[in-house]
């Protein structure tokens, strides 16, 4: 009952939105600017982290074009495409959470955050299903079992790279979902938006970026070499 009352209260009268200024900052504007810039700088490093993998994929593509094309045709492009759609939807719900947080609609923000986490989890489930299919089709050359394309060693490099890249992305997404759930847990308390609204903004950048990285992975690993 208290929950219901709190919900109606928060819908009727949005809470104040703001941030608690940390002692090293002169004011909230400076703190917001610093936090956003810090996240962008971090995302730049993430981009370069994946850039190394993309470079390896490009080099393999140039040195072994036929083998790479053959390997790429074994990837489950439809699962990849479905996952792209799932992540784009999750970016939409994340944007919803940010908008709600700006207006002080905590209840809606929480729902959107949970929906984002759910879509992220759906992505991971689909990804796991895809790995399982790869396993069934003997497309796991690094495991101690027969490999479907054993006749062409260079395909193995590309499949290795596919697993490394998607696993690294999945690791980022898993971390992302964990942070999202932790943040939702903290944000369930009233007055959260009064003190930490910019957490949502800054976290939103990360989520969108992980989404963007997936779009690059999907394009460069699944689609282009086919």
């Amino acid at each position, binding site marked *: 009952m208290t929950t219901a009352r709190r919900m109606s209260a928060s819908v009727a009268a949005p809470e104040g939105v703001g941030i608690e200024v940390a*002692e*090293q900052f002169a004011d909230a504007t400076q703190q917001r600017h*610093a936090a956003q810039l*810090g996240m962008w*700088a971090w995302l*730049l*490093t993430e981009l370069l982290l994946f850039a190394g993998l993309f470079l390896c994929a490009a080099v393999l593509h140039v040195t072994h074009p036929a083998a790479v094309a053959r390997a790429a045709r074994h990837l489950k492009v439809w699962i990849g495409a479905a996952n792209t759609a799932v992540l784009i939807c999750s970016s939409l719900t994340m944007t919803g959470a940010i908008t709600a947080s700006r207006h002080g609609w905590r209840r809606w923000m929480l729902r959107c955050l949970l929906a984002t986490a759910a879509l992220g989890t759906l992505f991971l489930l689909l990804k796991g299903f895809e790995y399982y299919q790869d396993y069934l089709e003997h497309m796991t050359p690094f495991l101690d079992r027969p490999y479907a394309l054993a006749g062409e060693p260079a395909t193995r*490099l590309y499949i290795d790279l596919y697993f*490394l890249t998607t696993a690294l992305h999945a690791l980022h997404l898993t971390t992302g979902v964990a942070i999202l759930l932790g943040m939702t847990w903290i944000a369930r308390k009233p007055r959260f938006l009064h003190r930490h609204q910019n957490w949502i903004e800054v976290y939103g950048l990360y989520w969108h970026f992980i989404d963007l990285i997936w779009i690059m992975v999907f394009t460069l690993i699944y689609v282009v070499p086919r």
Partner: protein
Amino acid sequence: MSTSERAFRDPAPAPATIGRPPDYLHESHTLRSWFLTTDHKRIALLYLAAITAFFVVGAIAAGLIRLSLVVPNGEIFTNDTYNKIFTVHGVVMVWFFLIPSIPATFGNFLIPLMIGARDLAFPRLNLLSWYIFVGGALFTLADLIIGGVDTGWTFYAPFSTTFSNTYVIPALIGVIIVGFSSILTGLNFVVTIHAMRAPGMTWFRMPIFVWTHYATSLIFLLATPVITIALILLLMERAFGIGVFDPALGGDPVLFEHLFWFYSHPAVYIMVLPGMGVISEIVPAFAQKRIFGYRFIAYATIGLASITFVVWGHHMFVNGIGTGAAVVFSVLSFAVAVPSAVKVYNWTATIYKGRIRLQTPMLYAMGYIGLFVLGGLTGLFLATLAIDEHVHGTYFVVAHFHYIMVGGTMLAFLGGLHFWWPKFTGRLYPEAWGRISAFLIFIGFNVTFFPQFLLGYLGMPRRYHDYPPEFQLLNILSSAGATILAAGYLFPMVYLIWSLWFGERASANPWGARGLEWTTPSPPPAHNFARQPIVDFEPYAYPDPPADDDGAAHVG
């Protein structure tokens, strides 16, 4: 005040400190207040302690290498032991000393002070990066010493992934972890410099030290992730057989070299640029003259940081990259000389007709300029394709990069340490000992490394400890120089620690230097400035030199 009285350094309020707000060192005294601090100044000292410890380890390994090279047939250590010792030296000195040396200590301490901020933008992240650094580095060090690794600091595939029988995996994990500490430090500096400058502190009012750290931080952000992924790929290949570089599978080991040097060449500038920042502070202060060509030095800094991303191929001239690519990389590498020379000429022009005081930091700075020129010019030899074919993989290369890394970065580090020691600790060190150590290091360094140019030119290969007997004389000379160098390093460790208790108390600005950090007490209060500084002056606003050219009369 007698020495014994000074010895009672005050936790209890002594008369001199009554009415004075406690500084960052005396604000609290518990271990907890140090190990859980978020004060950038204390974190800088934590870094200083950590990297000094790593430096000692790396230096001991260097001493063992020089010991082994005294005799030509390599009978002091076995081949395996020698390879492990030299991997300890390389890994510890490059990853755990040189890269964090100046940024993580002086940068951490001084950037907020120089731009008039209360702290870095993310103080807790700053503490976290120290723990990541110490954790990763100790892990690797334990592996290197207990297990041993024989790949050298470069971890070239396929040796590191397939053929080495040593404990490569833990070393890789440790180095990857330490990389995150670099990234977080760089991120913190970039955001701090963008967002935390005091009112009136425009970009072109920032000291060159801040400019160089900005450029260094950009390299941290842009290059470190690439080595992270390259080492992760190595790790996966070695640990799980998920190959990318393995030529047995059609993979490309040269690809690893590209990824490795895409980081590791810019990493040279991570080591060199902050040193240039230190020299750009010391030289105007001890010439009492406005720095010559401020904007040119600032632009040259950004220029160096940019060019450094497109010259990595000059490490690979003899490994089969195409001739066309080699020529392009060679020409681009020559281009590095331009911004480097801009800096050297500007420092020299700053000294010209200045009121020069040859105190310890200035001696180090002069040593730096000379050695950096020598290191830089021999770098041009190496950028020349035809000469590189001849001297690649010889001691010529070893001598070249030690002139840049030790002659450059290490001298700048020690110069900066002496220059800002009064600010860090509130104490002055004994000047005479400082000068003696500066001379010892300069002489010891040259005796150690100049013979290596000759050895390399005569064809002595690097990385082997078994060499033809005709090279023995120069090797003995080099090892003898290393003992002088070691003595030169020991002196500052002793007298700087001594000065913590017995050194004379320093004023806020003992050198008559300009810059915001000298306007606050030594040591500074916990929040750096009693009041928010407002900057309405240009950097290096030293008084103009007298027109009648009587500079010699002012020598102190």
